[in-house]
């Protein structure tokens, strides 16, 4: 019989915590680093560390539910003949068919289209389901060029040249063999069942000077019709954004380290890149420094969950945000109705992050036809639309409280910081003071 012990006196090491010990034991047993999906789980300064100053004696609020608060944004006004206008400043981020099921991609397209915003392809190319159900579709131009072809390029409403993503700036990806179905294999010109490496750098350009010519090529092929975005993972954001502008971007997308992934090493997810909060500020400063703020639109992403996050990103100077992980959750990812199935996989609803292994009980991050069929694209699309509408309403609520008739009129002056760290990163004064740590410093 096991002796019961009083655990109240046991002291856990903060260096070798139980999760750390468990990971060392797992690594020793399996001989491979942890690869997983989702985004960074560590605590970092976020938009939660900022607060809005509502209207008061010196500011005049707008009437909730009555007075108009504009949310639409036009993207790609710099060079494209056909900029795109989205009805809410919230877009769906790039996620691949391959990483996600065809049903999930269709649902994202349905949800985005229902509210008048855009969705984005991912590594692996454009599927007919996604194009057919997406009123506005951004086509990602990625290093692997899986599925890339000029016909799909011309079907896109915008093109996003992906230099990096927040979960793994400087890293590529690996779609493991168990997720390579016949269809995925065919789209990527590779045999079924083998691991498919997504390259970390583009095969035919190195550096911003080359990229400028590459963007001109894409514009020539598409007759200068559609906007071209450049997406970077948040690292040296000030310089990356300036180089993206120099390279000719219509829109710059900055993805913070909380951004999600389908399959990346845990060590990469948790230890590379900077949070969305400082990245947003650095990107805006870069655009203002060039006199291109609002001329080149800025989309930020990475851990956007609520209308508060959206409003704060806009107040810092972004033109729009993108959501990825939150959209998957809206569709049903980590849903309690799958608790039993999660338990069988050794996890629980709310903790599931093994998007890489293709066994997703919700039918979202899988290529298994039986699992995929669990996701009803119409219902999931409706949930995405509902969620986008909630985010939009929340954003409007905060903007009205600050007296803004357009969500993009929110400004840094409308906010204060709760922590010294957030104040320094966002360059927003600490609440109750006029103090910004490190103000005026360089990078």
């Amino acid at each position, binding site marked *: 019989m096991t002796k019961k012990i009083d655990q109240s006196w046991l002291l856990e090491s903060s260096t070798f915590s139980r999760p750390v010990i468990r990971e060392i034991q797992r690594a020793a047993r399996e001989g491979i680093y942890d690869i997983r999906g989702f985004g960074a789980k560590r605590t970092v300064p976020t938009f939660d560390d900022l607060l809005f100053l509502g209207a008061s004696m010196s500011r005049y609020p707008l009437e909730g539910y009555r007075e108009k608060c504009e949310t639409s944004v036009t993207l790609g006004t710099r060079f494209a003949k056909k900029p795109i206008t989205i009805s809410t400043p919230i877009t769906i981020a790039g996620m691949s068919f391959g990483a996600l099921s065809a049903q999930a991609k269709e649902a994202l397209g349905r949800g985005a289209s229902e509210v008048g915003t855009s969705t984005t392809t991912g590594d692996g190319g454009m599927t007919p389901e996604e194009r057919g159900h997406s009123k506005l579709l951004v086509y990602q131009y990625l290093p692997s*060029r899986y599925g890339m072809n000029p016909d799909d390029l011309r079907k896109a409403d915008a093109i996003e040249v992906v230099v990096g993503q927040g979960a793994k700036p400087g890293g590529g990806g690996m779609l493991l063999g168990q997720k390579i179905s016949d269809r995925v294999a065919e789209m990527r010109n590779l045999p079924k069942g083998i691991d498919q*490496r997504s*390259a970390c750098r583009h095969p*035919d350009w190195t550096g911003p000077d*080359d990229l400028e*010519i*590459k963007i001109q090529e894409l514009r020539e092929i598409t*007759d200068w019709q559609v906007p071209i975005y450049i997406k970077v993972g948040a690292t040296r954001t000030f310089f990356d954004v300036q180089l993206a502008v120099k390279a000719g971007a219509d829109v710059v997308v900055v993805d913070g380290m909380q951004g999600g992934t389908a399959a990346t090493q845990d060590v990469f997810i948790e230890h590379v890149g900077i949070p969305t909060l400082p990245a947003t500020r650095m990107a805006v400063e870069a655009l203002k420094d060039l006199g291109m703020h609002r001329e080149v639109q800025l989309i930020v992403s990475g851990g956007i969950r609520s209308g508060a996050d959206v409003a704060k990103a806009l107040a810092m100077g972004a033109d729009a945000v993108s959501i990825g992980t939150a959209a998957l959750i809206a569709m049903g990812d980590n849903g309690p109705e799958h608790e039993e199935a999660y338990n069988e996989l050794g996890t629980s609803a709310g903790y599931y992050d093994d998007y890489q292994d293709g066994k997703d009980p919700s039918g979202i991050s899988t290529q298994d036809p039986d699992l995929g069929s669990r996701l009803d694209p119409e219902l999931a699309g409706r949930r995405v639309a509902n969620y986008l509408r909630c985010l939009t309403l929340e954003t409007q609520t905060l903007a009205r409280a600050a007296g803004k008739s357009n969500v993009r009129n929110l400004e840094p002056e409308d906010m204060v910081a709760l922590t010294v760290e957030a104040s320094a990163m966002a360059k927003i004064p600490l609440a109750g003071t006029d103090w910004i740590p490190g103000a005026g410093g360089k990078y």
Partner: protein
Amino acid sequence: MTIFDLGDSAVRELNQALHQSETQGADLRVTNPGGKHNVATGADVECNVTIEGHVGYYCAGMNKSANIVVTGNAGPGLAENMMSGSVRIKGNASQYCGATAHGGLLVIEGDAAARCGISMKGIDIVVGGSIGHMSAFMAQSGRMVVCGDAGEALGDSIYEARIYLRGEAKSLGTDCIEKPMEDEHKAELAELLEQAGIDHSVDEFRRYGSARQLYNFQIDNVSAY
């Protein structure tokens, strides 16, 4: 014969013509390219284009249907992501020619620089001279014929593409090995040489491809990466 003089007209005019159905079946002559970038990109109709001189980056990029001849040299990214049709360079080509290309025939009569055929996805590439280092890196499918020598790390991390090399490779990349030349390989090589208009005996070539040892990640192979 329609003439585009790039000395006094924009590359855009040429490229737009190559996207329009009126150009179907036409013969186009492009003069004074002057090393300009993105010449004849995204050609979407069947036509014949002769470019008299040197071109810069991404000439014939994403070519879908045209038959394009460049009488001079080509800069980086020649015929990148080509889908079909043909591209012939009378001179030399810079780095990453034929990158990620899905189909068609790319012939370089001279030499090709580094990363020739990187991540190729079905194209046939025939090089009359030699190729630079890291060529056919992560090459997925298609065939590459090299009549001269190859630089370091030929076919590194190659998937299912086939390489035929007449000269010597300075070194083979990870997971790339020499494979036997069977009759089917000699037959397809002979056909490729004939299409390229290059005369060599197939018996002078050796074949290289993937050892397929790294197709699924295994920790025991970690020293190979």
